[in-house]
């Protein structure tokens, strides 16, 4: 292979990886119009009960303590800003942590379902990422399964004698992973492979997304632990207030 061909190949590959890594969190949001109508309806139907449950718990809490509305909105805005901003991170690229793991540990999974969906709606209406028709599917992966996994791991871990930091890391890491596995599953269901069916298609999506999502999940896990450390050191009082509040 001569020099120019090699240069061209390297150029193409780097463009491909730049785009695919800068859109890696958008890849976790299925874009507007990508899913066929029947899957749009299906995922909305799965999503709505969780949303209503979350809303009911939120209503119950805010009736007792109306100020918590502010706090919820604040955490939503915070998650959104994190996902919209480019934060200096590993390998010089920029990644957008989802913040769902931390949110679920701080506020509980049901409240995070509502806030996660609101963040998704904001991403659709302020940035045109994700979409309204695919909101149901995206919310199931990011706002339902992600927080549930994070909270499950956190609760289970607190009963054992594993160090708290490791638990927080695992919660954030696995909630990210779960989000991307569910997204791959949703895509596989909607677009089964012509020869291998749904399972082959699922493996294909999981395999490709793993390139960007596993480093991203690791980064998010580490970031969450460090933020948690800071919180424990400097904001113990607020953390206790949160525990009492929600």
């Amino acid at each position, binding site marked *: 292979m001569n020099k120019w061909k090699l240069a061209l190949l390297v150029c193409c590959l780097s463009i491909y990886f730049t*785009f*695919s890594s800068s*859109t890696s969190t958008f*890849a976790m949001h299925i*874009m*507007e*119009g*990508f899913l066929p109508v029947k899957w749009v309806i299906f995922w909305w139907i799965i999503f709505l009960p969780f949303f209503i449950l979350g*809303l009911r718990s*939120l*209503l119950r809490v*805010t009736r007792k303590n*109306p*100020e918590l*509305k*502010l*706090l*919820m*909105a*604040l955490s*939503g*805005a*915070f998650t*959104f*800003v994190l996902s*919209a*901003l480019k*934060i*200096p*991170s590993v390998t*010089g690229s920029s990644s957008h942590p989802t913040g769902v793991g931390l949110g679920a540990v701080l506020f509980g999974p049901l409240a995070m379902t509502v*806030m996660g969906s*609101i963040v998704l709606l*904001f991403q*659709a*209406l*302020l*940035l*045109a990422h994700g*979409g*309204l*028709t695919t909101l149901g599917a995206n919310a199931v992966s990011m706002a339902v399964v992600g927080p549930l996994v994070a909270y499950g791991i956190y609760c289970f871990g607190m009963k054992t004698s594993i160090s708290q930091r490791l638990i927080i890391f695992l919660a954030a890491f696995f909630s990210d992973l779960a989000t991307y596995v569910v997204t791959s599953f949703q895509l596989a269901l909607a*677009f089964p*492979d*012509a*020869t*291998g069916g749904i399972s*082959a298609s699922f493996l*294909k*999506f999981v395999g490709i997304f793993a390139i960007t999502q596993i480093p991203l999940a690791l*980064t998010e896990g*580490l*970031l969450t632990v*460090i*933020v948690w450390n*800071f*919180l424990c050191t*400097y*904001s113990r009082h*607020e953390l206790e207030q949160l525990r009492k509040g929600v």
Partner: protein
Amino acid sequence: MMNRFDTIAYNNRLRKVPPEQKVFFSFLLLLIVMLGNRDMQTVIIIWLAVWIVWYARVSWQVYVKALLLVSAFLCVSLPLLIVSIDHSFHISVNSSNISLVITLCFRSIAAWSCLFFLLVTTPFTEFLYTLKRMKVPSIIIELLFLTYRFVFVFARAADELHVAMKARSGGNHWRHAAMLIFQLIQKTWLYYEALSFALRARSFSGEITYVQKEGDVLCKRYLFEAIIGVVMIVLLGVIGGELL
């Protein structure tokens, strides 16, 4: 990006058109896109481009840039659908999937156009007002409103923090990113406390009301074009034969 879209939403030629009309129009078109065939989707893409660039006077550079970004994302994800891998790791290109991919391309871009039209012509607060008239539970609207209020404050705070860190030659290390996030959390918390004090001082009882100015005039010219256009597109679908 976010700031720019929001600014455009407040300063475009269709700003004076009642928000209900714009929301209803884009939702209706979205429904047609999801159910319709490729001809209808193509017509909708072109028609909405005219609405966005010509009627709303959104700079065409912004529109093209946003469109290119979406197309780039589509291009990255579409090859996955064409290539199929079987159990013995034979990679093959499936020609039957190519038509599926083209359909998907048209549907995605058409649906995105509807979303983008809504995004650049309707300010978020007016969208919320429409939701209120659609009888969406008030807690959702309150949360959305408060979140919207906070988003820009934090985006700015985060920006300032970033600049401050850069000015002190903070590096690209991920530890710095975590520090930034933590400081943002702290600022957020201070802001939350200040706001809750302020609200309590004004005897906050749990309900936040805000004023929506009335008196947008119904613009007959746009309404007329919208109705005629939608009818024509539906007719195109019926004549084309394959709705759904």
